[in-house]
């Protein structure tokens, strides 16, 4: 049993003649909240899509919770939860019906009980009978996290989870992610642009540049390694510019 929740070696993804990922090698230990940073087009979403088996890599290998994404994609899907950016769900269905649908598709044994549990975890009770078409962005994200953890995944992938949320929504979601990680032991892999949130939420970061991992370390080590920089934003900009101080 490996201690790595995610292990990728030499991942390459090409779209036509364009290389989105170029020999990406990455390891995320179990129990981490890992933030993947990078400019637009750096390959963050492609990385998540490959690790969640939505996209096949052009070459290279990767495993999630010990399951190979190429040879065991169905097993990978059983141990991951995923929340894409700007997911809308089925507006004509209630929250309970949406969650019941995803619980049944995931083979959850006692879906009704599990739905109550996950709604407690994301602190979102009392909205089960409301149609999701009436939900705000923040409510949708909480519902999204709830659907992602219905089947008790080992690794949770979040693509820009706090994008478009108001400060209160960001704080709420941050607390949920931290609780999932600390209390339930879920490894979290998130793409984000909000560097302030990364500092508050993540335990480690990786920075992608032109499809390659150009930096990876824990948050505390990163902040210690750049004594002249006041914030993660400054550190990120200096690393991304290829001029670490």
């Amino acid at each position, binding site marked *: 049993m490996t201690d790595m929740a995610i292990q990728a070696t030499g991942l390459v993804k090409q779209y036509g003649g364009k290389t989105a990922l170029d020999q990406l090698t990455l390891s995320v230990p179990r129990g981490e909240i890992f933030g993947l940073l990078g400019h637009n087009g750096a390959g963050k979403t492609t990385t998540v899509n490959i690790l*969640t*088996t*939505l*996209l096949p890599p052009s070459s290279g290998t990767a495993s999630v919770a010990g399951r190979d994404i190429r040879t065991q994609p*169905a097993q990978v*899907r*059983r141990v*991951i*939860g*995923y929340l*894409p*950016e*700007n*997911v*809308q*769900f*089925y*507006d*004509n*269905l209630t929250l309970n*019906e949406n969650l019941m*649908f*995803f619980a*049944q*598709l*995931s*083979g959850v044994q006692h879906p009704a009980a599990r739905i109550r549990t996950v709604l407690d975890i994301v602190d979102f009770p009392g909205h089960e009978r409301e149609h999701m078409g009436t939900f705000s962005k923040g409510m949708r994200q909480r519902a999204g996290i709830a*659907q992602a953890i219905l089947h008790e995944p080992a690794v949770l992938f979040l693509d820009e989870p706090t994008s478009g949320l108001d400060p209160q929504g960001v704080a709420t979601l941050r607390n949920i992610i931290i609780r999932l990680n600390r209390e339930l032991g879920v490894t979290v892999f998130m793409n984000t642009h909000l560097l302030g949130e990364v500092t508050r939420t993540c335990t480690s970061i990786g920075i992608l540049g032109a499809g390659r991992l150009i930096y990876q370390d824990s948050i505390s080590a990163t902040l210690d390694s750049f004594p002249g920089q006041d914030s993660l934003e400054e550190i990120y900009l200096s690393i991304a510019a290829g001029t670490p101080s």
Partner: protein
Amino acid sequence: MAEVGVLCRKELKDLSRSRAIAMLLVFLSAVILLSVLVAAADYRVKLAEYTAYADALKAAGGSPTPPPNLFPLQMLRAGIEYLEIVGSLFAVILGYGLVAKEKGSNTLQLLFTRPLGRHAFAGGKILATVIVWLVVVAALFAVVALAVLLAGRAQLAGQDFLRLAIAAAHTWAYFIMWSLLALTLASLTRQPASGLVLALVLWLVIVLVIPQIGDTMDPDNQVPGGLFTSLQIDRTNEKALLTHFASYETGRDFVEQTSATKQYERAVFAYLGVKTQYNQVPLGAVWDATSHNSLWLLTTSVFTVAAAFLSTTRETLLRKLP
């Protein structure tokens, strides 16, 4: 298989609450009902005219000629035309929506990070389409039959109900064909709207252009009311005359037969007795004369089911995400 059932139930629930779909179906029902009511009024007038004539003749000591051929199912002619044109258009919109909304709301990514079988998504969508149209068509034909009975004050025999059921089955296959064609095209195109445009172009060609070409080429359509009727040429002589234009008629027939809409119309009009030559003809004889139309329609529908099943896979949908 359980996943197919889960996906299908979700789809049915979603569709049953869709305001847009409800409005389209209410509109379709209303125009069909209206067309039957108009035809029923005309039917009642003709029946009353004959009854008055027969009564007057009897009172004068004469014996009236046999009643005119008032076949009540002929009231459905305009309704069937609405189904083949407007209904098929709605079927295209429904089929397109089944994939477009999943692509537009990013729910495909949620579905495909679940341990689903390769064809579970397609299976759920196809099954939902089949069930939706079964329910809608059954309801439409039940309403239509009631309208014929009540508004037309017509008497329907057991065989008439069978004819209605056969027409409904053809309509069911026809709608499934259009919905699954649109679903296939929306799956195969990166932007679902492009798939919709393609489906609408095909709809335009199959539903409007080809039948119009066939009608324009029909010699009997060259004069309002019918060329042969206006020249007082009866059916036997019409057939004898057309044998001199066999090649032309074969070509015209071939053009029409390339349209699934025309196949549907020919079969349904025959079973309902809308076409005079099939009026009061036993069902077996109608089958003998039009089985190729029914079988072509069935083949086309089965083909679209296969196309939807094979095209609406995880690989295709994820490769074609907007």
